[in-house]
């Protein structure tokens, strides 16, 4: 004679501290256990794709900043990559190196934000968040040197960058690269062997590699499931083919692996930036005329490995000054699709941890 309990349906969000923006989950609980879940998006819809049809090609760069506002550089790069494919624009080599440096810095910053908020959701009051943001602040300072802005950078332009790095950027970057491995070690010692973190995240929200591939999951979440897939190696863009780095993968595909993969990716990013600093050539960073571009009729799909996964832009041009269509394949949106399968059957706390481990950014989901 089991005691029958009433299922309770709760609207988790749109205003909730753990939903990373305005995201609504209709969750049905049986006590603490999640028995059903339905994600509802659209609360942050800003019509980026439609707005892009009304902007010139260069103006769209500013729109991409706002997609995944934690990694604006990567979004810029994804867009300009597609545009350069479409317009057949050659990019100067120095610009490519600077692009890789800024994108990898952005990856570290984004993963730091992920780590901070992930642990915040695990319940470390705000300590880890502050530590991670302290480290991220230095990256933002570097961005301020590069392009005058810290979050919404709009640094890249079709055919290059807005401007070269200032002279004081390089010593600051070197300082940061020296300190960063120490920061990562500290984070690792603080968290990675922490039994509470382990017991909260191990074997929680396991995503099998088959399921992940079928659902077209990408980025660290895919790699945490053990699939060694990274666009930087699989389809090298910019100068990644010259770089020497590893693709960290996880063992089981649980929340802990998603965290540890990101942590190791930060180390790899530091490695990549160091190589870039060593190899960067002199020269210009801009292509003349690309600011006022009018690409030929046709279409192009350009994609990069953004911190959250494969970020793709599909641009159709009708020969005018603005694209006929600009489709954005945002990694967060596609990674969110597996939410129900991962969460149902877990506890409420697991729900928060799993959702946090996906590092979904609502700006990107709703576009």
């Amino acid at each position: 004679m089991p005691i029958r309990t009433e299922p309770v349906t709760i609207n988790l969000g749109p205003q909730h501290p753990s939903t990373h923006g305005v995201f609504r989950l209709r969750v049905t609980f049986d006590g603490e256990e999640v028995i059903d879940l339905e994600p509802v998006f659209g609360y942050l819809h800003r019509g980026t794709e439609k707005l892009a049809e009304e902007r010139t090609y260069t103006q769209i760069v500013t729109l991409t900043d706002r997609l995944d506002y934690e990694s604006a550089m990567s979004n810029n790069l994804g867009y300009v990559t597609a545009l350069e494919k479409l317009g057949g624009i050659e990019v100067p080599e120095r610009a490519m190196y600077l692009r890789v440096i800024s994108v990898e810095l952005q990856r570290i910053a984004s993963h730091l934000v992920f780590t901070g908020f992930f642990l915040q959701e695990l319940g470390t009051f705000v300590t880890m968040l502050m530590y991670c943001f302290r480290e991220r602040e230095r990256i933002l300072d570097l961005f301020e040197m590069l392009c005058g802005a810290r979050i919404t950078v709009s640094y890249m332009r079709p055919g290059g960058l807005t401007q070269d790095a200032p002279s004081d950027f390089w010593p600051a970057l070197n300082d940061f690269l020296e300190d960063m491995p120490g920061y990562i070690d500290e984070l690792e010692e603080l968290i990675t062997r922490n039994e509470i973190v382990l017991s909260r995240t191990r074997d929680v929200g396991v995503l099998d590699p088959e399921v992940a591939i079928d659902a077209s999951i990408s980025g660290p979440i895919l790699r945490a499931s053990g699939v060694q897939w990274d666009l930087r190696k699989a389809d090298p863009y910019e100068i990644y083919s010259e770089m020497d780095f590893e693709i960290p993968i996880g063992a089981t595909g649980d929340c802990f692996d998603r965290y540890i993969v990101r942590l190791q990716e930060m180390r790899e990013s530091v490695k990549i930036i160091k190589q870039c600093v060593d190899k960067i050539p002199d020269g210009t960073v801009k292509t003349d005329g690309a600011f006022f571009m009018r690409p030929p009729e046709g279409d192009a799909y350009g994609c990069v490995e953004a911190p959250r996964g494969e970020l793709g832009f599909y641009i159709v041009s009708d020969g005018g000054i603005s694209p006929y269509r600009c489709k954005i394949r945002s990694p967060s949106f596609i990674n969110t699709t597996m939410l129900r399968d991962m969460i149902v059957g877990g506890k409420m706390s697991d729900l928060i941890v799993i959702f946090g481990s996906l590092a979904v950014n609502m700006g990107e989901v709703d576009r």
Partner: protein
Amino acid sequence: MELGFRNIHAFVSGILPDGLEWIAFSISGIFLALVVINALVGVAALYTWFERRVLGRFQSRLGPNRWGPFGLLQPLADIIKLITKEDISPNSADRIVSTLAPIALLVPAFLVFAIIPFGTNSFLGDLNVGVLFIMGVTGMNTFGIFMGGWGSRNKYAMLGAMRGVAMLVSYEVPMALALAGAVLLAGSLSLSGIVASQTLPFLIVQPLGFLVFIIAASAEMSRAPFDMIEAESELTGGYHTEFSGIKFAIFQLAEFMAPLVTAAILTVVFLGGSRGPDLIPGQVWFILKALAATFLLLWIRATWPRLRVDQIMGFAWKGLFPLALLNIFLIAAEIQFFQSGGIEPIGVSTLLIMSGINWLVTGIAIYILANVLGQPSLQPKKPVPSPLANMYAEAE
């Protein structure tokens, strides 16, 4: 003159004519309650400042520092802000229950302080069932949380309250058992008796009891790593989600009283209360020890994440409960062995021997328990690349 009920009563009844003892009794009681409660509220307000500053430094930031010297007036500003805020409650809320909830949460915290011996005695003198009183009274705060959760008719609050009740009831058991060890050793249920018998602080004599007590107490006051009642990342505040204004202020006050209460009990039962070298007065010793205890609690709060609800319950019954039983068994056996028959207090040398044994047993017990409870699945695994999408193969 020491502030105590007896002194006040003697003073008041000296002024009043004979035959009015009951008026003297009431006056002195009300006066004492007024003084003590106001002092405690003041101390709790100061403690919020302390907690926020220390927590801020732990988190490598500054904490409140703008308003007044070193931000000391920040609690005042907070109180003014909270009092002047509109008191909103949901339309379908149970008004009476939700109004009483903050009071039900706050009163037990004040009641505990009535029997804490700051000096040689508490304000009210000595209660012979002090430890039991503490257990009974601290168990009452369940009702505050429950009434808050139920009365505000909010599902988050409800979930928080349900978690809270399940957790508080479970953790009362190891907490009581941990206190029982101290009671056995002291041979007295009264807090003054426990203080008097601590020629060696019980922290040294029974580390296991201290450990169990501090863990269970941080669960009882729902602080990290057991703060799932509020769990701001999951329940957006838990039972006080729907509270605002003065009710919320009282909830916060009760919440900030909790570490003070715990620190006071810890100090009395395990750190030797107001005992200490005579260089500084006993009350100062008491405050120093209590501050050290609150610092320890803050340190833990600043570092550890939160456990999941089933893990918290499992930890109470599978981890703390056996440890507490072991502690009681150990202490009882030692008392039986060392104190064979006599009723004279145990000497310091014997206590030292006992503590040696206890530390050893504590280490072994924790080691065994950690390896029994610690799941081997938590150990890192070696990642194997899945053959499904081999990037290197495709790149070639």
